């Protein structure tokens, strides 16, 4: 049963105010094409949950689509900070729940397994914890281990409405293969509904080798969008490198709200679909430059 749908249709399924997990990590495997289309469709009041803030989330915040951010901080690595996120938090234009990376990952893990919460030893003594405990509806609590009496931080399970995950390969049923580290797996499996964007669709019965590589199993996946280079300008290990030139341009635009508006106008509102954007950033020629080496995988 194929779950392949056009990008417009998959994005249209996301309701106003949804809680989304996004799959990127800094400048790696961000579901950029999906976020472009969300911005074009004018999604608003989203809550985004992501262990380490990434390119697509900065974009979404910059477009004014985000009401609340649940994350553990982040940057675009050396190319620069998450300007839009940092600015929105500083100016109070978005609500933010800041975690450490692992504590938020545990909330996803609990969600993925249907466990109500997880007890851990991180965050203790920090102002991060202090602020989380002071939230209106706290999703973190202090407690103690019933076996050892030790103090623990109890982290409530997080089950986003949707996880948007970009993968190099998926079959039409949604058996998704991810190469390299898989930081977003707990977030993906925590969500009620998983939507994949995939650079490549492969078909036919899975070989044992392929089954071994499947990271996200089809029964958990609702929709698959086929979008080659759908993570550009971020990288997909085994497929293509990040586009440093474009990320630098992005960071330089994102430094000011005015610059960001220009970026959005040019690269998102100014095109009708992601393929048009790919033409704009240099088309086939640029894409070929970014193709991963078969041994190095970048």
């Amino acid at each position, binding site marked *: 049963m194929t779950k392949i749908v056009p990008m417009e249709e998959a994005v249209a399924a996301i309701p106003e105010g949804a809680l989304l997990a996004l799959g990127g*990590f*800094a*400048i*790696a495997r961000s579901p950029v094409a999906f976020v472009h289309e969300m911005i074009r469709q004018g999604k608003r009041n989203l809550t985004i949950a992501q*262990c*380490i*803030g*990434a390119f697509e989330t900065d974009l979404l915040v910059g477009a004014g689509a985000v009401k609340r951010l649940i*994350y*553990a*901080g*982040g*940057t675009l*690595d*050396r*190319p620069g*900070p998450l300007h839009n*996120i*940092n*600015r929105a*938090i*500083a*100016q109070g234009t978005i609500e933010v729940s*800041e975690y*450490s*990376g*692992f*504590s938020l*990952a*545990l909330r*996803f*893990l609990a969600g993925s397994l249907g466990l109500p919460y997880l007890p851990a*030893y*991180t*965050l*203790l*003594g*920090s*102002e*991060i914890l202090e602020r989380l405990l002071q939230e209106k509806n706290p999703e973190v609590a202090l407690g103690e281990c019933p076996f050892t009496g*030790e*103090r*623990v931080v109890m982290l409530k399970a997080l089950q986003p409405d949707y996880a948007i995950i970009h993968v190099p390969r998926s079959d039409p049923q949604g058996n998704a293969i991810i*190469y*390299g*580290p*898989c*930081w*977003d*797996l*707990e977030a993906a499996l925590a969500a009620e509904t998983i939507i994949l964007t995939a650079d490549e669709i492969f078909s036919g019965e899975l070989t044992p080798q392929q089954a071994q590589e499947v990271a996200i199993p089809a029964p958990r996946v609702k929709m698959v969008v086929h979008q080659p280079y759908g993570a550009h300008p971020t*990288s997909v*290990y085994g497929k293509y*490198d*990040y586009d*440093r030139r474009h990320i630098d341009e992005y960071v330089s635009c994102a430094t000011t709200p005015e610059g960001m508006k220009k970026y959005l106008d040019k690269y998102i509102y100014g095109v009708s679909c992601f393929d048009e954007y790919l033409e704009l950033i240099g088309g086939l020629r640029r894409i070929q430059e970014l193709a*991963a080496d078969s041994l*190095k*995988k*970048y």
Partner: protein
Amino acid sequence: MIKSGDYTTRELMAVAGARELQDNQNVVVGLGLPQVATELARRTHAPHINIILEIGVVNPAPIEPTVGIADPRFWYKSEYFTTFVGAMGQFLHRGLVDVGFLGGLEVDMYGNLNSTLVELPGGGIRHFTGSGGGNDIASLAKKTLVIMPHQKRKFPPKVSYLTSPGYLQGGSSRREAGLKGGGPEKVITDKAVLGFDKKSGRMKLLSVHPGVTIEEVIAHTGFELLIEEVTTTAPPTENEIRLLREVIDPLRMYIK
């Protein structure tokens, strides 16, 4: 014999970091000096060190400069890929990380780190990177090494936001908070190597870099340092310098 003009301050810092690492340790590494220091240790006295990137990568051996742990160049020749929980749970929260590297906007007299925000003079805040895995590493690694530029405003008596715990309010407060990791062991700056008094948890000057005076360190620190025996930071060896310049960072991205 190496003379003080023969190496850069960042080379000295990398060497000071490398010397804190032992063979067979599990080390959580990030971009820049932590990576360089760990690689130097691996190529000298600690060949079986295990490198863990919080993104879910174990024992990479990069051969090209990277821009961060999300750069696949940093994952080259990895031996194992896992999830975020795999890296941070199975190793760090499980208590198996010996050393983690940290940095930040501010470090205070108890080794607490701020990497989240600063309050602006005119009111309001400026927001920065936040924790990432930093809080987790500070909470859970057996010891942490802090690498910071030595500036008075970056060394305040109390951080303006406590992102990653050091010895908290000093004394036994870290242990009482329930933290399992050992806390900051060293702070390596461009002027000195600092440690902590075991009992009070206060920062202590251990060594000044060649050419730097104790007074200079004091002048660039925003709180009172404990000062007992202060040595001079041991300079790099010729082999270390050769490895840094020819093998580990030939483009001088991190050590210039």
